[in-house]
């Protein structure tokens, strides 16, 4: 059965996906999720037990120093194989919006800049 195997074998789901190769077990993302969804696995690497419970706030991604976490849109809500990355550079957040072919759109949102809308 798919659900089980994928969880056990680290397949990617809607919501966040954690790349264990990139994760350095710093634990920062454990302490920010509004749903308390992330904890350490046996190796101290980040682990989300139930990806379907993710709200998609991207809080954990903003914490990660190594870019180990990506956000996917569920297929049921219009996902198409792309994903989102975000890195916090203090003065700005740098967002990468990646389509399924790898084409990247980069957007910077400066913290000093208010939304125009």
């Amino acid at each position, binding site marked *: 059965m798919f659900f089980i195997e994928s969880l056990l074998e680290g397949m990617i*789901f*809607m*919501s966040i996906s954690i790349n264990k190769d990139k994760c350095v077990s710093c634990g920062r993302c454990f*302490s*920010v*999720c*509004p*749903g*308390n969804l992330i904890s350490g696995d046996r190796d101290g690497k980040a682990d989300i*037990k139930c990806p*379907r*419970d*993710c*709200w*998609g*706030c*991207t*809080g954990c991604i903003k914490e990660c120093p190594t870019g180990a976490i990506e*956000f996917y*849109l*569920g*297929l*049921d*809500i*219009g*996902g*198409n*194989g*792309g*994903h*989102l990355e*975000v890195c916090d550079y203090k003065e700005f*957040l740098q*967002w990468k*919006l*990646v*389509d*399924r072919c790898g084409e990247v*759109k980069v*957007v910077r*949102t400066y*913290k*000093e*800049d*208010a*939304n*125009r*809308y």
Partner: protein
Amino acid sequence: MERVRLDTDVLVIGGGTAGCFCALTVAEHSSFEVLIAEKAFVKRSGCLAAGVNAINAYIGKGETEASFVDYVKKDSEGIVREDLVFSIAKGLNRVTRKIESLGLTILKDEKGEYVGRGKRSIKINGENIKPILAEAVTSKERISILERVQIVDYILANDEVIGAIGFSLADNKLYEIFAKAVVCATGGAAGIYKPNNPQFSRHKMWYSPFNTGAGYGMGIRAGAEMTGFEMRFIALRCKDTIAPTGTIAQGVKAEQVNSKGEAYVSKYGKATTYMRLYATVRENMEGRGPCYLKTVGVTEDQEKELFKAYLNMAPAQALKWAENHTGPSSENVEIEGTEPYIVGGHTASGYWIDNNRKTTLKGLYAAGDVAGGSPKKYVTGCFVEGEIAAQSIIREIQNKEISDIHLDEKDVAYIHKFYSNKEGSYTYEEIEEAMQKVMDEYAGGISQGYGYSSDKLKIASKRIDELIELSDSLSANDSNDLGKIWDVIDRLFVAKVLIQHLEARKETRWRCYQENKDYPDKDDNHFLKYVNSIYKEGKVNVFYRELIGRDDIYEHKY
């Protein structure tokens, strides 16, 4: 479980918008110790996790505190606590300056004045509003923060709330926290109804899926008076991502159009918040859907700014555009209604409070989405309520002692008994889904176009009671399970009260929000009243209260 007792002057349950602001006010205006008990982590817990798009409650140029109350009253068809809304109006601009001083970016014009987005809204960068708030409370010495602790019930003695009990989601501890005053600031309730995307993306909802109505649940069980549960909030949102629409509607002044390109809202009446939703539901039913926010034609620059605005509060929408190689300038944004939420910050459901934010239970205060009677408070209104509660507490507890009562193991055993329950037939996940389905189908969810009838409510009521009974035999293996079990129990109590409130309003006051198919019209003669309730021994006792005016002084007598 290891039992841990903690004593504090002020216990704030929920380190969200209202809770943090309340704690901050106590710390800055008194020498009392405050303990925030938070289920998750204050840095990004609650509604503000991803960011918000604007300060939506602000007295802008040309508006007054009184005109704000008028607006809220009109948008809510008269059923508001004008006294509460007025008290909020008075604090909105003050708390706005406060959050700015803490670091929030707010857009200003050349003259240094805030830039409006509509009459009562100002433009911000709300992405980091919660980290800013969290930093402020964390840095206060007299504020302690207990994270990953889920509060489950109040501790009562002589009809007074003297503390609260909860458990750690990280280890095996059970906390018994005693305080001179307790503030409930746990937010509203999502997940009562089947959501828009009930399958893989079940948590991709507008309201925080982690706000499970715990504060309502513990209040109901303790016998607190509740108000306005029947004024459900149903948001009009970007389809699928359920991202807010105000950014587009107000920001680039996009009209709502149907699939024929017709602006349809005005056909249905004055464009109140619920009417914009109702009109959309109706257009769809009649085959003129999908409905859209008409964005095609916005400039490249506007599109760029919309991307940024969404990244700062609902990044999923930006991703959806990008990975599908589209955007608001080339494609109108489809909109849909969400499942109904119970949330006192947008509509009026919650604790029946007085102007000091005291609940009907002595010693217990409520602020933010969990407090009833004053719709449209949004972020800043929640701040104001936290502030008012804090000021009232500072006055009240000057000469108060922390209770020296001790609980017995038998008093708390019901909280963790789920560890000893044998594995049974069903799980909390199944109970939650069953609850959501029954509420959807029999208590006016999405599948019913939000309408309900007395006959259907009877079925819902019976089933919710069965599920409450079944929830009692759920079994937990770890604290995560225990947390989820209490989440579903809280939601079931919210559902139980909600059903009786829906039943009691024998009219249709707010289309969709409260659409009683047995009584399809508004009935001012009989129902310009609050629907309130008190739960006791398994029964929800509903009664009506007369409207309270803006200058009335309403105080609880204990």
